[in-house]
């Protein structure tokens, strides 16, 4: 049990007296202070001769009460005297937190800021895209400056390291498409069309799309976080001062890596999705594995492959630019790195899906259906 400070009000020499006893410290003063604030009779004297301990919180409590009741402090020890004068000198009326505007002001302000940020964001991304194009021309003119080692490293991180997870994901997606498709098609006695469904869907759409989402999550976020951290530690500034362009050394290898590897990973993903479909068809639909694969060759037009090979590098470019741009925008503190990384992934995936919808309509109108 904790020992609390206590008080009594008595009539003594000098008028109505408040006698405080017990320790007067931060751990014991809470209830006493609460009761003192509720007293509404006048007091003439506050006597603290009986207290056992005092700290600045105790000193503050009695000196505040003395000021409030306009009472005289008595029995003040040398230590109490010192503490009271210290807290009195440090008295202030400042606000604890800046005033917060009401919702009527906050909501329009937030909307306005979002619109403004959207505008400057678009301008920034377009500008960044221009910088990427211009530094790729510089690299073509000065091939010796090409950061070959950095690019190989990014190929490994973005591509090779992603193979297991992309492969497993695609295989499972293939299983889901084939199995769910077969359930529906069986109602028409058309389960053989499961092969068309799986083959065309994975090659034309899902292979590349799922890969893009995976790459945005794996690599887009890594780009933003890596470059962002380098900005915080002033590595990017250091590069500039020694004449190394961060655009060429940091951004280009990463963007090239995603642009080149997205088609490869996308194709690999489609193949594994088809294998997944064939695998489940073998067991659930009595379509032999090899028959499934041979049939895919007949029912999937080559244009489906072209479509995915055209889409993939564009998606890669979007993911790379979103990641690197957000990384380069990091300012101030570590919190910003996290925020920018999130934005990079969300923007990357969102833009990929928007463009995918556009491509779907575009290629159908082109007659590639």
């Amino acid at each position, binding site marked *: 049990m*904790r020992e609390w400070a206590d008080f009594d009000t008595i009539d003594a020499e000098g008028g109505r007296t408040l006698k405080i006893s017990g320790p007067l410290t931060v751990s014991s003063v*809470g209830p006493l202070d609460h009761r003192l604030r509720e007293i509404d009779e006048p007091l003439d004297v506050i006597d603290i001769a009986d207290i056992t301990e005092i700290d600045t919180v105790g000193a*503050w409590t009695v000196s505040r009460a003395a000021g409030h009741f306009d009472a005289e402090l008595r029995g003040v020890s040398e230590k109490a005297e010192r503490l009271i004068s210290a807290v009195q000198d440090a008295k202030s009326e*400042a606000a*604890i937190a800046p005033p917060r505007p009401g919702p009527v002001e906050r909501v329009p302000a937030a909307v306005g800021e979002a619109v403004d940020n959207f505008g400057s964001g678009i301008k920034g991304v377009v500008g960044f895209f221009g910088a990427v194009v211009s530094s790729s021309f510089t690299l073509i003119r000065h091939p010796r400056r090409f950061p070959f080692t950095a690019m190989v490293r990014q190929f490994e991180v973005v591509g090779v390291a992603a193979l297991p997870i992309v492969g497993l994901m695609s295989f499972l997606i293939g299983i889901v498409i084939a199995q769910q498709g077969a359930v529906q098609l069986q109602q028409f006695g058309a389960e053989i069309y499961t092969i068309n469904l799986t083959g065309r869907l994975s090659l034309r759409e899902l292979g590349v799309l799922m890969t893009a989402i995976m790459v945005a999550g794996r690599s887009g976020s890594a780009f933003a976080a890596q470059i962002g951290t380098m900005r915080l530690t002033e590595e990017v500034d250091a590069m500039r001062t020694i004449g190394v362009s961060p655009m060429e050394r940091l951004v280009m290898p990463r963007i090239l890596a995603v642009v080149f590897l997205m088609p490869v990973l996308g194709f690999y993903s489609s193949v594994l999705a088809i294998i997944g479909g064939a695998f489940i068809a073998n067991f659930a639909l009595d379509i032999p594995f090899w028959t499934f694969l041979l049939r895919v060759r007949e029912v999937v037009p080559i244009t489906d492959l072209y479509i995915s090979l055209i889409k993939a590098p564009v998606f890669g470019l979007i993911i790379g630019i979103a990641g690197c741009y957000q990384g380069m925008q990091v300012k101030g503190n570590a919190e910003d790195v996290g925020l920018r990384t999130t934005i990079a992934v969300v923007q990357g995936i969102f833009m990929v899906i928007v463009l995918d919808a556009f491509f779907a309509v575009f290629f159908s109108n082109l007659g590639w259906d």
Partner: protein
Amino acid sequence: MSSARARKLMKRAMNEAEYVPPMFTGEYPIVVKGLVNKFGSQTVHDNLDLNVRRGEIIGVVGGSGTGKSVLMRSIIGLQVPDEGSIEVLGRSITEAEEDADIDIRSRWGVLFQGGALFSTLTVAENVEVPLRQFFPELTPELRHEIARYKVRLSGLPEEATSKFPSELSGGMKKRAGLARALALDPELLFLDEPTAGLDPIGAAAFDTLTRELTDTLGLTVFLITHDLDTLYAICDRVAVLADKKVTAVGTIPELLETNHPWIQEYFNGPRGRAAQATDLREETQARGLADEHAQVDNPTMDKA
């Protein structure tokens, strides 16, 4: 809140309040015995002993990587040592199984190197965090008042009270960190390089503040520093970390008499000499002023 309801809440808070040990009255608030700290194959401390006296400012010095911060982290229970015992305010830190067992946490304040302020809270709200955590029975009014005067007590201007850490300069962040460290009126104060990164004027002001607060509040201060001026200006004793243990503890004149090569180099290097000279000058000035009030100061002499 109605006052009846407030009174009921207060009753409950009083019943639930945990025991707080009384003020420490022994001679040594910090006792470290046979401390061993290892990181992998690297031994940082090997059989280190240190006693800190009540009411003193002890400066801890040592080259980079000699484990000054590790020593502090061990004492406040953030780093579990491999061997040895540590007693703080009469309680064993090393035998405590869990963090909650260390019931003297409300009795010390720690100022980390970068201030370590909570970035989403204002300075005053930062000061209120320990108050809310340990003493929920304090009324919000009292808590706000405490936060306000602690901010001023740490040498910050009134306007800084409602500012966020990101709006403060490096020196102000340190002071705000000090305000939070002092929030609970601790008996023990740990300062990790308080003057690092401050300009000489700011550093000197921080030193003065530390000394004043120590004298006013009756603190015991464990101060890690690289700053020779700080050592000369405010430390009662200095502990030297070298060869994986505390090689020597004592006042600076005492340390100068030992012939440990690192200590000699530290205090008698060019920077050491400069700090020594400043200290001597200030002392003579102080003595001169105290001796004769009638004597008129010659300002040009002071600058020499």
